[in-house]
């Protein structure tokens, strides 16, 4: 379980996040949705200890993210940001191999190599694993980074808009992969999504944020209503029953 207690961060007197009190249950996919600037990514980076908070505490699986050693946290929670600085002379496999760093300290054992292979296969990157990162498209590189945090083998996985740069097919595959990881490997996935329909279809819980605060937290059935979505996104949203579940229509 991820437990946030009165977490707040202020950039200036107008721009503040929180205070947020939130419990994200273990297991399943929790999607964070909301308009631009709602604080979804900021909250996620604070949970992933990439950003400090001003007040409050965050615990992941009972470990305080500020006081627990970064080295130990790296085996419990992994986080992937949107933009990643990439090293040009690095192949996909070498990048994914870095996911094993918290476990191996850099010297990959056969078991580590096995995990790396699994993770690469999981995201369908077998044919690309020897390519250098600068030879890949944005979407392929995105998948390679997700493979890296999967190889890290943590119970908690925080992903900041992993569907960026991905086409329709790979977006759907990515969400299916993540759902499989959540169900079969019993991981907890927290994911920032822009497309509310992806959240409605694949997530087990949806956390809707607005103006730095959590407005709603619930199952997709509770969040996917015209009233909730219209107020969160401040734009008229209709929800219709589609052939594969509810769809938000806002075009």
């Amino acid at each position: 379980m991820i437990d946030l207690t009165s977490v707040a961060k202020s950039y200036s007197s107008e721009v503040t996040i929180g205070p947020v009190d939130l419990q994200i249950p273990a297991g399943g996919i929790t999607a964070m949705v909301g308009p631009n600037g709602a604080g979804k990514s900021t909250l996620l980076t604070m949970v992933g200890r990439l950003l400090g908070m001003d007040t409050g505490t965050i615990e992941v699986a009972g470990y305080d993210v500020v006081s627990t050693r970064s080295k130990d946290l790296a085996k419990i929670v992994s986080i992937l940001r949107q933009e990643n600085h990439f090293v040009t002379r690095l192949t996909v496999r070498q990048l994914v191999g870095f996911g094993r760093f918290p476990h191996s300290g850099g010297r990959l054992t056969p078991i580590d190599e096995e995990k790396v292979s699994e993770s690469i296969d999981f995201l369908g990157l077998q044919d690309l694993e020897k390519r250098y990162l600068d030879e890949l498209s944005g979407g392929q590189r995105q998948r390679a980074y997700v493979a890296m945090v999967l190889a890290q083998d943590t119970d908690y996985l925080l992903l900041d808009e992993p569907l960026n740069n991905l086409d329709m097919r790979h977006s759907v595959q990515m969400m299916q992969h993540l759902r499989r990881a959540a169900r079969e490997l019993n991981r907890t996935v927290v994911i920032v999504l822009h497309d509310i329909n992806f959240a409605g279809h694949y997530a087990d819980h949806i956390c809707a944020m607005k103006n730095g605060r959590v407005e709603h937290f619930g199952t997709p059935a509770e969040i996917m209503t015209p009233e909730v979505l219209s107020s969160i996104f401040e734009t008229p949203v209709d929800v219709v029953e589609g052939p594969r579940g509810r769809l938000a229509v806002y075009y």
Partner: protein
Amino acid sequence: MAETLTTLPAREEQRPAEAQLTGRPPVGERSAGAWPTRFRRNRYWIILAGLALLSVAITYGILGWENPMPFGSDGFWRIAKLRATSLVVIIVVAFCQSISTVAFHTVTNNRIITPSIMGFESLYRVVQTGAVFVLGVAGATVVQGLWQFLGQVLVMVAFSALLYGWLLTGRFGNLHIMLLVGIILGGGLGAFATLMQRMLSPAEFDVLTARLIGSISNADATYLGFSLPMAGVAGGLLWLGSQRLNVMALGREAAVNLGINHRRTMIIVLLLVSVMMAVSTSLVGPMTFFGFLVAMISYQLADTHDHRFTFPMAWLTGFVTLGGAYFVLKNIFYAQGSVGIIIEIVGGTFFLLYVLRKGRL
């Protein structure tokens, strides 16, 4: 390194059986080593061996070329000993400049800015110029000597500790601001040194110039007993931290995600870098583009992200470049004093070409 050579094939042999079961491509090919293919790995070791041979040849060339005594005789070794100082200075300077530049590039996630740009040379120039300015020609000898040498190293390390400590742990915590402040400080100190130089008498200026332009024959052997272990320990620590440096190269967020204490690692690396830069600058004076030249060449030659392999390549490249230039200039052009100048010209041209070709910083 020998260990890596022997373990790699063994690891690959363990896998074919399961590879057939899982229907994957031969697993021997599936390992996240320093190079993706056998060809690239062999290429590295061949180049490294070639550079090592070249280094041995240069070492012999520096010690034995035009040595009037027959090889192996007492006289030969006596003359060789006299020349050995320059050789050791070349080895130490190549070591310091190459290792520190590569490590600096990694933790700052850029391949343009080198430690020199952080104001090191300028500080050195201010210390040297200040001594001559205040004390006259006699002052030039005041900044020589063992304690003065240690003092200079200390001043330079303290300077960087202050700068890094203030900028990195303060509210900025931002590398770009630190680099900008470094450039401005460097420019300011450089201007201050130039101002003092303008006011020197020609005789004083002459003495100072000889001191400021990097020269291998200029270095005093009494310093070596101290600079050698200092540089060795700093460089050794960086090499031992190769795995962490590899992760640091991924950028702050990826490094923190993988459990690296980014800020602490960064400060430690920058301090080790400043120790090595101080040793090098105090020995032979400023060498602005040498580190850049060597680092860029060795990235191409090593062709890997793994610092365990980049570091040795960089050191050998540095030694071959500096030692080769010294040997050629000394024995063919009889101008060993201008090694620094030549290296700066080549390095500076290379730097410009690189920036122009890439089109951005």
